[in-house]
């Protein structure tokens, strides 16, 4: 496949810095970045950690930023195209990353890649997502307009999670036997549609 890493000025500069880093330290760095890649909007390293990294890797703030962003970019592209580890290694050597560093990338990718792809497949953005299903079955004995009922009634609790707020919104639904059966039949129709996809 065509390379997804173009040798831009920025890449060249990053490669120079990366090649100078000790390989063991680099290996740990890449592992950490890979673990946090699927979390949108979260910093991989805290301010404090970044300062420590600067001295550990002998890089100034700007250089460190470039290295971290480039490494993340490489991994994101790897995920996006779902490249094979060997292809990744070749592409990195093609932009003059030294072989031992390229190998670090491809080994980490081989190990963590498939799981990362799975996680990202489930990273959808919808206004709300169903996260919790709870229920209660009651036997209603009476109400204002009716005495001596004895009718089963179910309460279904749907916990909806909104990505933007951390709060879970609870929706409570009431069903009698007939209504619940009707709902179940509708769910069965959805299931049969899902079945046609596999």
């Amino acid at each position, binding site marked *: 496949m065509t390379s997804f890493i173009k040798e831009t000025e920025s890449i060249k500069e990053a490669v120079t810095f990366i090649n100078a880093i000790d390989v063991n330290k680099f290996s740990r760095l890449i592992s950490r970045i890979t673990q946090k890649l699927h979390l949108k909007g979260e910093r991989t390293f805290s301010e404090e950690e970044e300062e420590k990294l600067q001295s550990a890797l002998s890089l100034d703030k700007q250089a460190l930023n470039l290295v971290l962003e480039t490494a993340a970019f490489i991994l*994101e592209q790897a*995920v*996006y*195209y*779902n490249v094979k580890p060997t292809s990744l290694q070749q592409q990195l050597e093609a932009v003059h990353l030294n072989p031992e560093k390229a190998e670090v990338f491809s080994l980490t990718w081989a190990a963590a890649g498939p799981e990362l*792809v799975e996680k*990202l*497949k*489930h*990273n*959808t953005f*919808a*206004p*709300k*997502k*169903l*996260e919790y*299903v709870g*229920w209660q*079955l009651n*036997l209603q004995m009476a*109400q*204002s*307009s*009716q*005495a*001596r*009922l*004895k009718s*089963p009634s*179910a*309460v*279904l609790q*749907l916990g*909806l999670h909104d990505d933007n707020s951390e709060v879970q919104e609870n*929706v*409570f*639904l*009431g*069903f009698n*036997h007939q*209504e*619940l*059966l009707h*709902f*179940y039949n*509708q*769910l*069965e129709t*959805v*299931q049969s*549609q*899902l079945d046609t*996809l596999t």
Partner: protein
Amino acid sequence: MSLSHAKDSSFLGGRIPPEIDSMSKNLKDVDQEMFRKILKAVVSGLEGKDCSEVMKSIAESSTVPQERLSHVVAGVYRLLSEAIRVPASSLKQEAFREDLRELRIPEEFITDFSSVVFGNRRAALDAATARNDPHLPTVEDFKWRVDVAISTSSLARSLQPSVLMQMKLSDGSLHRFEVPVSKFQELRYNVALILKEMNDLEKRNILKIQD
């Protein structure tokens, strides 16, 4: 006013509500035509319709003083409300008529009352009164979609299915949310489980408690 000590207590319970008591006393001034008008208006009121116009015309066209008329209306309303509260299966027509005879209600009026309580409009009446009872929102409209994400900003080839649901509830609220496939399975499983429990419950002895 002494009551049924000879048979099981009346559908009204141990004590006669005062409105019904005073209605019986005032019924002798009301002719059947007037009574039927009142009955019809009260049924319409129980169904939730506005009957102020009808009531006004009844009051104007009657020779009975308004205060006595209002006792009758209140009594008819109370009697009917209590009668329809009891499930249709537990209140037998003969017992009902007997209870009304004990209240010294004229026989023709008893027949009119019976036709409301045991007639074919009873189901509609029950549904109308049940509407005002407190209950959790029910699903009025349920729409869904099965989507497959072909690619996303993170993955050129995602091919991940998901379900989108939209529920319009009886309280007017609208909820639209995504359901990951695994959660959908969980929802479906749980609904099936509740249905099974409901079936078991309906078969058990607790439902055979004698009324």
